[in-house]
Structure formats: C-alpha cells, structure tokens
C-alpha cells in the first residue's frame, strides 16, 4: 500500500508540474523562433466572425517582424457590457459594442483612451459618431458603424414610394388592401419617433442631468397623433415577427403587412423574403394633434470598437482597432453586409449609397436624435409603460367611446367631446407620469 501511495503521489506531482509549465502569456519568446510573440483577444458578433478573420489576416501582414496571434470569440454587441464588466482585466483586448454602453464602460474604467490615433479618427469619421464615442472631450472608442436607427421597409408590390411619404396615405393603403403595418414602440426606442423632432431631450452623463419636455403642448400634440394612428387598429406592434409577416404577403396580403418599421439588422432577411419587391425609405410624416404634418424622428446610434484599459498589449490593440475601423474595412463591411459606415468618405461612396437600407438610414439621420446623448438607462422603463398605456387605450377607443356615450349625462355628445373631456386629459396624465419617471434619474 505504501508503494501505491508513493506512486500516486509522484504521478500527481509530475502532472501538476507539467500542467503549470504549459500555456503562455503575451510577449514570451519561444526558443525556436526569434520573433517576439503577441496575442490579441478580439470579441465580435457572430455575423462578423468571417469578416474579423479576414481583417486579422491582413493586419498580420503589416507586422512581418513579430509573431502575432489572434483569439476570436463571439460576444454579441448588446451583451458586451455585461460580459466585460464581470472581469475587465481578463476580457478581450479589442471588442465591439453599441454606443449606449459607452458611459457605463467609462464609469467602470474599462476603456483605454485614444491618444495615438485620436486626431486621425476624429478627422475621418462623422461628427456625431465622434460625439457619442467621447466623454468630456476624451475619445474612448473608435466609431465603426453609423446605422443604428429605424426606417420603413415596404413591399413595392402593394405600395409605391410616393405613397410612403405620409403615415396617413400608408394607413389608407393598408385599409384599402385589408392589410396591416408594423410600428413597434420597442420599449420606448422607436416610440421616440413620435416626439423626437419638435421635442427637447438631452442627457449628460458628466453632470448626470436629464432634460426632457415631451409632456408640454407640443408633446401632447405628438401623443395625440400617435393615439390617432394606433386607434385605426391597422398597426401591429411586434417588430420581432416583421420578417414572417412580410412572408405572408406571398400568399395573402391580408394576413401580412405592406410596410413595417425596423432597422438594418433585418435588411438581409427582408431582402431575401421580398426579393425584387424589397424597398426601404426614411420615416414618413404623421398628422399630429393640431392637424399638421410632423416628421417622425428616430434614435440614432453607432457601433464602436473599444480597447481594454487593462490590456497587456496596448500598442498592438490600438493599432488593430484603428485598422479595423478604417476606410477600407468599413467600405468592405458596407458592401458585403449592408452595414452603414461612420467613415465620411465611405458614406459618400456610390456603392454604399445604392444599398436601400443604408440610403434610408442616411436620409433619416438628419431627423434623428443621438440615443447616447438623449436618454439615460432609466428612460426605457417609463417609456415602455407609457407606450403600453397609450396603445391599449387607443386599441380600445371604439369600446371606450361607446361606453362613454351610453352614459345618460353624455347623450348628444360627440367623439370630439370624448377626446377633449376624457381621453386627452388621460394622455396628458400618462405623459406626465412618463416624464416624471424619466426625470427621476436626476435625483440619483
């Protein structure tokens, strides 16, 4: 038994020694090759893994005098913050994330400030993408795309571009064909389009101040316009099934939709479904409570590439991030994946201008508000609740109206009276609660 004991102990000890000797970190020289070895960890979304592999290969060619290894991993852009903040020093050296996560990442000290390439990045990218990548004049990330936002896709078999300019004409067409459209409030993100253009909204992380005035008269007028649109019951509110709904048009347009609000993430899928009938256009105008045409806005955002503040290879990481987001690579992404570039020259490239979804995004951009500069993270819950409350009332408008008119004291009154006496004060209430909820962050 002692022999067995000894044998097991020796075996165990040898295993431990061997295991601990294996594995290397960056900047170790291997005995065989003379070149220093560096490893960079890069995180990107699953649809870009092929693109990233190509980019890393071409980047390696720029540094023939070192041995460069890349470790790619799939981390979806919306999940980046949650995963990175679990362990910042152990996270990737270069990673991609949407601009609304920038502030939290900077608070957590996870981003390395741009110094070496700062001027070049500022000069070659669109102004507002630089704005959302900065905090207090310090640039913390490399702008990569500029196409986060909404616009309308439509099926050109059933509706023409000329009819897609006002929401009224779109709804009229939907009613004529007995079909529907999709406008999903998306938890407050797309809902901002009803209020964004005439309203004032801003959020400053450094001073932790939110300003928003969407419950004044102008905001009320926008909300009434939104109410009137949903009241027609021609608008569905689930953006997640927009692709399947377009597919229904092949069999019966009454089961499907003729148009829907979505973003570039669905471009490839919808194009596959609609084929030649695929078309996209910027957001239409709608009739607000005062009877005027009001342009629907949108929240625009960018995707950024950041470098880990605790990376072991800052020089290479910054160089790679800069390379990954330069003109050539952004143009490649635009043409192959339909992703809108933030590089000014790339945006003006005719190939890019030809992509319908990108053209729609660029046309819509002047009416957009910067998501990262407009709302704190405490906007979403009140906004979603407001959308639910308003849309539910709008959907039940006919029933509520009938019930109200049936009351004896309301005999002889009209729908307009119902609106002024009951519904509009209710909408004002919803708005007030919504704005109060959003402004609560100022007390934090």
């Amino acid at each position: 038994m002692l022999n067995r004991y000894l044998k097991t102990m020796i075996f165990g000890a040898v295993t431990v020694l061997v295991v601990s000797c294996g594995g290397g970190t960056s900047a170790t020289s291997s005995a065989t090759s003379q070149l220093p070895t560096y490893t960079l960890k890069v995180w990107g979304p699953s649809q870009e893994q092929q693109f990233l592999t190509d980019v890393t290969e071409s980047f390696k060619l720029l540094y023939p005098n070192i041995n460069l290894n890349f470790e790619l991993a799939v981390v979806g852009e919306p999940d980046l913050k949650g995963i990175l903040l679990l362990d910042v020093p152990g996270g990737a050296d270069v990673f991609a994330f949407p601009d609304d996560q920038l502030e939290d990442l900077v608070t957590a000290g996870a981003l390395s400030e741009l110094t070496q390439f700062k001027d070049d990045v500022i000069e070659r990218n669109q102004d507002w993408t630089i704005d959302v990548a900065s905090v207090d004049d310090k640039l913390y990330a490399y702008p990569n795309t500029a196409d986060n936002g909404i616009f309308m896709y439509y099926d050109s078999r059933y509706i023409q571009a000329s009819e897609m300019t006002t929401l009224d004409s779109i709804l009229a067409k939907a009613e004529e064909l007995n079909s529907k459209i999709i406008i999903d409030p998306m938890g407050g993100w797309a809902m901002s389009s009803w209020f964004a253009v005439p309203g004032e909204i801003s959020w400053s992380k450094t001073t932790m101040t939110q300003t928003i005035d969407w419950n004044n008269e102008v905001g009320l007028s926008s909300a009434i316009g939104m109410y009137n649109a949903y009241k027609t019951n021609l608008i569905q509110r689930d953006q997640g099934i927009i692709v399947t709904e377009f597919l229904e048009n092949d069999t019966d347009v009454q089961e499907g939709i003729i148009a829907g609000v979505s973003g570039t993430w669905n471009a490839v899928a919808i194009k596959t479904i609609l084929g030649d009938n695929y078309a996209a256009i910027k957001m239409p105008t709608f009739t607000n409570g005062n009877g005027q045409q009001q342009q629907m806005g949108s929240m625009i955002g960018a995707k950024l590439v950041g470098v880990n503040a605790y990376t072991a290879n800052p020089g290479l990481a910054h160089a790679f991030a800069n390379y990954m987001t330069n003109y050539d690579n952004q143009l490649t992404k635009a043409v192959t994946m339909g992703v809108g570039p933030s590089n000014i020259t790339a945006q003006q490239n005719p190939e890019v201008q030809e992509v319908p979804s990108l053209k729609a995004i660029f046309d819509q951009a002047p009416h957009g508000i910067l998501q990262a500069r407009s709302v704190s993270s405490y906007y979403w819950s009140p906004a979603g609740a407001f959308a639910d409350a308003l849309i539910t009332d709008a959907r039940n408008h006919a029933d509520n109206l009938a019930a109200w008119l049936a009351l004896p004291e309301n005999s002889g009154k009209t729908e307009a009276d119902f609106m002024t006496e009951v519904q509009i004060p209710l909408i004002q209430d919803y708005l007030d609660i919504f704005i109060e909820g959003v402004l609560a962050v100022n007390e934090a």
Partner: protein
Amino acid sequence: MKDELRSEPFYIWIPQSILDFIIQILKVAFEFTLSIFTSLYDFLKTTGKVIVSLAKKGYEGLIKYSRIFIKGNYKTKLSFLLMGFGAYTNGQIVKGILYQLLQVVSLGLLIFFFGPYIAKLNTLGDTLGTPVTYDPGNPNADPFGYVPAQPGDNSMIILLLSVGGIILAALLYYFYLQNLRLAEANEMTLQVGKRPIPFKEEVKQLLNERFHITVLSWPVFFSFIFTVLPLVFMILIAFTEFDRFHQPPGSLFTWVGLDNFINMFSGQNAFYSRLPRTLWAILQWSFVWAIFATFLNYFFGMILALMINKKGIKLKVLWRTVFVITIAVPQFISLLIMRNFFNEQGPFVNFLIDLGLVGPGYGPFLTKESARFWVIVINLWVGVPYTMLITSGILMNIPADLYESATIDGAGSITKFFKITLPYMLFVTGPYLVTAFIGNINNFNIIYFLTGGGPSSQQLFQAGHTDLLVTWLFRLTLFDSDYKMASTLGILIFMISSFFSLIIFSRTGGIKAEDSFQ
C-alpha cells in the same frame, strides 16, 4: 353523520355542505392569522434561547480549553502555539506533520494573500488604479510607446477575498481546536499506558469504521467554498452601494449600512421614491398568484384524477399517459411557445376575433387584469398534469370500503367527495400544498417566460404588473445592474419565504395531530 345523509334531500344538504366547507376554511384562515402573532412571539423567544445557549457554550469552551492548558504537560501546552506538536511528539508523526503544515500554509495564505484585502475591508478600497497611457517619452513605456496599467483597489475583489479569508480563518480555528483536543487525548492515552494510534491505523479506520467522516468531509469543505462563500458575499453586497454608478475597476464602492433597506421601505431617497409602493404591490400580487396557482392547480388536478379514476372510463392508462407526456417537454420550451401562441398577432387572438369575442386590438398580455388572468390560466394548463399525478396516487389508496359504506348509507357522489375524498386528500397532501405555496411565491419560470413581468407599469419602479419578487430581482440585477437593491430584495424574499414556511409547517403539524381522520 350518517343520519344527516339519509334524512335531508340533496338540494338542502349540498349547499349546506359547501357552506360548512367554506366556514371551515374561514376558521382555519382566522386561526392562521392569529397564529402568526403567537409564532412571532415563539420565534423571538427561541432566538433568545439560542443566543443564550451559544454564549453559554462559548463560555464553557473557554473553560474547557483553559483547563487543558493548565493541566496539560509541556507538549500539550506547546501545541497551543504550534499545531500538531501534541501529535508528532507523542508518536503520531504523520498526523502531527499534517497539522503543522496546515497551520503554516493557512497562516501564510492569511497573512500574505488574504491579509492585504482584509486590511481594506472597512473602507473597501481607497485608491483607484491607472489605465494604460500613451507616453512614448516615458522610461516605463513598452516598444509601442504605451505605459502599462497600474492596478489599484477593486472593491468587489476586496469584499470577495476578505470573505474568503475569514472563512479560511474559521476553518483554521476549527482545526486548531481539534489539534488541542488531540494533544490532550494523546496525553491521556500515554498516561494510561497505551500508544496513540499510528497514521496507517488511522487511515484504515477512516476507510472503515469512521468512513462517514471521510465521505462527509469533502462535501462540507466544498459546500463552504461554493455555497457559503458566494452566499455571504452576496448578502454583504446589500450593505454596500454597488450599482451601475459604482462599477469596479473604474469606481470604488463602500459600506452604506442599512441605507438600502431604509430606501426599500421608506423611499426617502428621491430616486427610489417609488420603491416601497412597488415592494408592497409586488408582494401582494406574489401572494395572490401563489394562492391561485397552488389551489387552482390542486383542485383541477384532483378533479381530473377523479374523472379518469371513475369506474366505467375506458383506457385509463392512455388518458394518464397523454397528460404525463406534457410533463416530458421542458417547462420553459412550452412556455415560450405559449407566449407566441398568445401573442396579439398570434393564432389564439385571431381565433377569438373570428368568433367575435374581442376587438382587433386585443392582446392577452396587454392590460394588467388580462395579463394576470391569462398567466393564471396558462399556469393551470402547465401545472395540472403534476397535481393530477400526485392526487391520482393518493386517490387510488383511499380505502374502498369507506366509499362502499357511504353508498350503502345512501350518499351521492357529491357527498362522497366533500365528506370522504376531500378531507382525506387535504390530510395527506397538506405538506405538499405548503411547499407548493411557498414555491409558487418564487415561481420565476412561468412569469418571466410568458410575460417578462409585463405589462409595464407607470407606477412601479422598474417593474411590471405580473412581476413577482424574484422576477423583479432579476430585472434589477440584469438590466439596471443595481446589485445592492437586488441583494436587499433577495434577503427580504428569503426572510418572507422562510417565515411563512416555518409558520405554516408548525401549523400543519398541529393540524395533523389534532385532526384525526374521521
């Protein structure tokens, strides 16, 4: 009882039985509410007794070990300083060396690894680190011109490793006391004239007579690391200010004492002003939901089991198998499918629209009342097979002669149900109902996958109308990164669940004892 059945016609005694039943339930509810107060008092009394007995034990332990020191010879006295001294000088060489090694390694770890973190435990860090900077002129710069990052204090790591260090210290203390008793035992053995057990013998003993120690020690050890450590860590977070505005490594956070609990109950911080209202509303809905979910499932399961069990139904096994197959599908898959099925553009709503029952804008999960109603109904659909199985088994065990004698006495099936089946079932499944009730208060899956906690509410703080306490906690953690509030809420949920479990279980025990089955 038998006379009642014979003399009155059915249209009198059925309502009367139902009334009796309701009165009985009301009586139980009333006694239950009263018992909450008596239980609280008992609980406080017991806690007091436990504290006193712990103090007494501590005092006795002190006396015992002092006596060991005073009465022991030099070897035992030295083992107060060097662990294992009382072993390897008394013939147990290997065991002594193991103890000594344990002391050296643990103390080394505590002083050099855990020590720096424990030292900062009271402030949870005060200096931030610096990230990489681009400074080609700096002598510390690497070949690319960047100065590497300087690590600073990370509040989360400080908290975590301090707790780890404290647990290591506790384990060390335990083995230290073992060591003292070992020294004394060895001294006694030597005095009597016997030899202390050599190591080989001891190992054989541990594999034979004392195998229970060998087998139990590993789970205990690992449960300390993987269960107790994270638990203590997360409980302590509730007393800090760890949230999205205080994220390490870029920011530090520190202790805030009971502020989070005060905010939870009074909402004096303007940002959290809606917290107390939200807590109360969600608590109410959690209880209402648990009552409906448990009891509706129970009764419908029982009725289903009764129907299948009835004499004259063919293919009993087929019906039971069909219902049991639905259990085979993982719950969250069927729930996600149900969520799409009940979508406002989905088949169910279209069906209702075709029937003309609802208008085109209807959505089952769009309004508060509608969402709550449908969640309870869908939960019924999901949960009935389970309760059917349980009640089936018990039903088949009810002695048949009870039913036969009732039939002979002229009882109809409804009487039989209320006087025989129901009391028997409640008697047997009492504990199950209690566990199911407490479990349903925290039934995360159904609520989260069906409605996500929605529809969103304008009045509540980051919560919706079908949110339970656990789903609210989930939202706070994941979407707001508000770890401190989530941890506070977690502690509250634990206190509520355990409080009600203890009360109800003690009541059930009482019921069981006094309610002899008639």
